């Protein structure tokens, strides 16, 4: 038995390091777990990007689930995510709401004109103050909010085809099952 001990110790260490590698490839090491998951989304009252005089609040969006996508024209990874969102928007099954984060409205409009607009509604948070309540610390971030206004899923970083297929679509499917 004592002859086997070094081998067992080596295997334990190798197993631990292997788990570490696996764990870090499965998770974004920089993503912070949001404490807001399964809690009501924070209240907000923000102007629409194209009609700044009209404000949109949380109550206006209750009743149907929606995906709140935080983006900005200055955010490079939003450009990576954008084609994926645009392709997915018609078959997503939920409303896609754009949350323009810390952006000059003109820059945002120019960016959307250039890259296309997949959003059915666009709200603008120019100061980024409301975004603090959502725990946003960069763009892109996406929140899946159900009909009752509860945050059911959050993704930090761009929505890639893999994230769309493996995480977002199942989360949306689970939402639709409970509220037919």
């Amino acid at each position, binding site marked *: 038995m*004592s*002859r086997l001990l070094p081998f067992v110790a080596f295997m334990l260490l190798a197993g631990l390091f292997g788990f570490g590698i696996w764990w870090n490839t499965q998770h974004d090491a*920089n993503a*912070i*777990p*949001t*404490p*807001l998951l399964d809690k009501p989304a924070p209240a907000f009252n923000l102007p629409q990007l194209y009609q700044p005089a009209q404000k949109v609040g949380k109550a206006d969006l209750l009743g149907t689930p929606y995906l709140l996508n935080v983006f*900005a024209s*200055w*955010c*490079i*990874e*939003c450009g990576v995510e954008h084609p994926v969102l645009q392709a997915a928007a018609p078959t997503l099954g939920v409303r896609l709401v754009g949350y323009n984060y*810390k952006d*000059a409205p003109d*820059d945002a409009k120019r960016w959307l004109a250039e890259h296309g607009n997949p959003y059915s509604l666009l709200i603008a948070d120019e100061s*980024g*103050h409301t975004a*603090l*309540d*959502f*725990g*946003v*610390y*960069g*763009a892109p971030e996406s929140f899946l909010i159900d009909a009752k206004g509860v945050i059911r899923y959050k993704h930090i*970083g761009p929505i890639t085809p893999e994230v769309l297929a493996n995480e977002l679509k199942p989360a949306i499917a689970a939402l639709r099952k409970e509220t037919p």
Partner: protein
Amino acid sequence: MHPASRRSAPCARNTSPYRKAFRAHGALLRQLLVVFLLLAGFAHAQAIEPMPFADHAQELRFQQLTRQLRCPMCQNETLADSNAPIARDLRNQIFQMMQHGQSDAQIKQYLVARYSGFVLYDPPLTRGTWLLWFGPLLILLCGAGAVAVIIRKRSRAATGLSRSAIDNGDDW
């Protein structure tokens, strides 16, 4: 304002034109150096962003508090040090909350409610962090147990040795 995107921009960038200055010659060099040093001082002052604190005590409190909090974007920098846009926003938010008379505990609670316990450099003892707090002690106890077992085995082997007087050198 155009804050930088999360991964595309480094947390702190300070590209400086000093090197060019050193390539210039003679008196021009000295003049340029003075100008650039002044510019550098200006840039530094900009990075610190002076805030209208009520008094010096509040400023000290602000500095102490922001040094205990971690920037969510540049994750190995404190809120006090970080140049990330979100760190600037959070510093402003903390400043505003201080002006409204909120305590350090209330400000920390505000941040934890939004960015989780991750923002605290000194994590509180909760069910999720007990392994973090007591893990080292646990490993120490395991080590002490292993040492005790080995010592007992050796002392037993030593008493056995006097009888058998055989040592195969395997008791590493």
